[in-house]
């Protein structure tokens, strides 16, 4: 019979004993999520700059499209990535399915629209006159872009953190493309799902606690950053 108190004690024991399996899973989760967030932000910032800093026909449609992509369910992205990366898929020769790289690719695709959307709103909120002020003070194209990014740096950081926390908590998609292979592609969320199904609650609870702490920690940082961005 499941005993909550007992399971909790055992979970804490696992954490405090620095059980290598647990910490390997935690470390991989953070590593993969950080990598995908980093790639996504590196792509989202120039993309959002290109969209906001240029005038072109259909600009509103492009921004609308980016925003609607935020709503694409993770599991659909997982499916697409699976089909692309599977042996018989067009990118099958990369042999990436069920590797951490596959998780990173899927997670990156998942959050690029989210991060781009957040970056676009941050850049749009920057008054036109701030940009003009930099121009009148002699900023050339690159200086101007650097200056604009500096102006919205807290909002960009908030976009990064939001994306990071989104992928850190992602389960289904990660399971589909990562395969939840022990010691290889098993991350916190997929491990919790598996251990819970197996009735192995103490490991699930232990990982759940870590995930909770990380998620709350990220949220606190996010709120602090957003507070600065809003100033």
């Amino acid at each position, binding site marked *: 019979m499941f005993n909550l108190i007992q399971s909790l004690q055992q979970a804490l024991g696992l954490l405090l004993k620095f059980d290598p399996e647990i910490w390997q899973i935690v470390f991989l989760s953070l590593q993969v999520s950080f990598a995908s967030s980093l790639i996504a932000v590196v792509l989202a910032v120039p993309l959002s700059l290109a969209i906001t800093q240029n005038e072109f026909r259909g600009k509103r449609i492009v921004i609308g499209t980016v925003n609607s992509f935020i709503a694409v369910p993770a599991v659909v992205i997982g499916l697409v990535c699976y089909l692309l990366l599977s042996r018989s898929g067009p990118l099958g020769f990369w042999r990436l399915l069920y590797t951490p790289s596959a998780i990173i690719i899927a997670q990156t695709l998942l959050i690029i629209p989210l991060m781009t959307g957040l970056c676009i709103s941050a850049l749009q909120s920057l008054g036109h006159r701030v940009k003009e002020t930099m121009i009148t003070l*002699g900023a050339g194209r690159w200086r101007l872009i650097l200056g604009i990014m500096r*102006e919205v740096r807290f909002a960009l950081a908030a976009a990064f953190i939001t994306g990071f926390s989104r992928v850190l908590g992602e389960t289904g998609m990660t399971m589909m493309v990562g395969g939840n292979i022990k010691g290889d592609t098993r991350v916190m969320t997929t491990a919790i799902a598996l251990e819970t199904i197996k009735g192995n609650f103490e490991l699930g609870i232990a990982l759940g606690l870590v995930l909770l702490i990380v998620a709350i920690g990220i949220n606190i940082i996010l709120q602090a950053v957003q507070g600065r961005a809003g100033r």
Partner: protein
Amino acid sequence: MKIVAQNIAKSFDGQAVLKDVSLTIDATGIYALVGPNGSGKTTLMRILALLEKSDGGTLKYKTRGSEGYDAVVYSPGIRKKMGLIHNPAVMLSGTVRYNLEYGLRVRGVSQSERRRRSDQALESLSLRGFGKREARTLSAGEIQRVALGRVLVLDPEVVFLDEPTANLDPLSAKLIEKTILELASRGKKVVLATHNIWQVERIANRVWFLNDGVISISGTAQDVLHKGDQAFWGKFLGRDNMYIGKIGKLENRKLFKVDRVSFEVVTELEGQVMASLNPTEIILSSQKLVSSARNVLEGVVTEAVSEGGLYKVTLDVGVALDVAITKASWDEMGLHKGSRVYAVFKASSVRIWKEENGE
């Protein structure tokens, strides 16, 4: 730098803001661009400062040391020799010093030189100790001073200022005017868009009056404001009771004389001066009042217009004198065109200043 603009035109959404504007900025000094709201002053300055493209016409710039005029648009090289201050001025996120040094940083100026010039700017704009303050937390007057300092450190040849003293505290406004005068005395060309006719009188050398997309009046400040149609300027710029006259002495008292009228004033100035009198500081009386007010002028009501809750009554006291009274006073006194009344005001209510300088 010399700027020649010819037949500049600009429309927004099919609405012509500038129709056909030609002007030359060659001599050192202060140029005032005046005109009603929406007359295109800001747009014209933005076009001249290469922030906005005109739809038609040509713009030519001749920079110091260059041979002929360059007909260019959007050349960063030329833009770097000009400065523009928006209204309201915008601060970049960061400290006052960061703002002051931004343009220098962009130009690759060394840190020690940046520091020297920003220190100088802090000093000359009464901002000593402000270097580490977050620029966006400053007051409007302080922000305007930082914005001016940010341009000054770059030593531009032409400076464009959009309503530089609008909504500022008197101290900041005075400091900014002083700085503008200093800039002109150092051989810079300053172009300011302004509503403030007092400011134009105090500091501008040349005036362009922009109306309905064209420059309808231009000339030296003296010609346009003093020899031109004063009633027009007065009405247009909401200026009442402005006179040019001479200060005379009668025993220990100072008298301001304009045409055949004279009234007592308080001033240290001598010779030709300008005087103004706020219409709300004048009392109308149907009998000759005995009071502490030094001036009692007899006149005839020539016009009365209802403006808001007030009546603006124009008297002929030898010169035209506008007086603002409430409708109730107008009714109770039973005034009408042709009524004989006395205008009573204190000597200290008359503001006196020299034409070429500050008050």
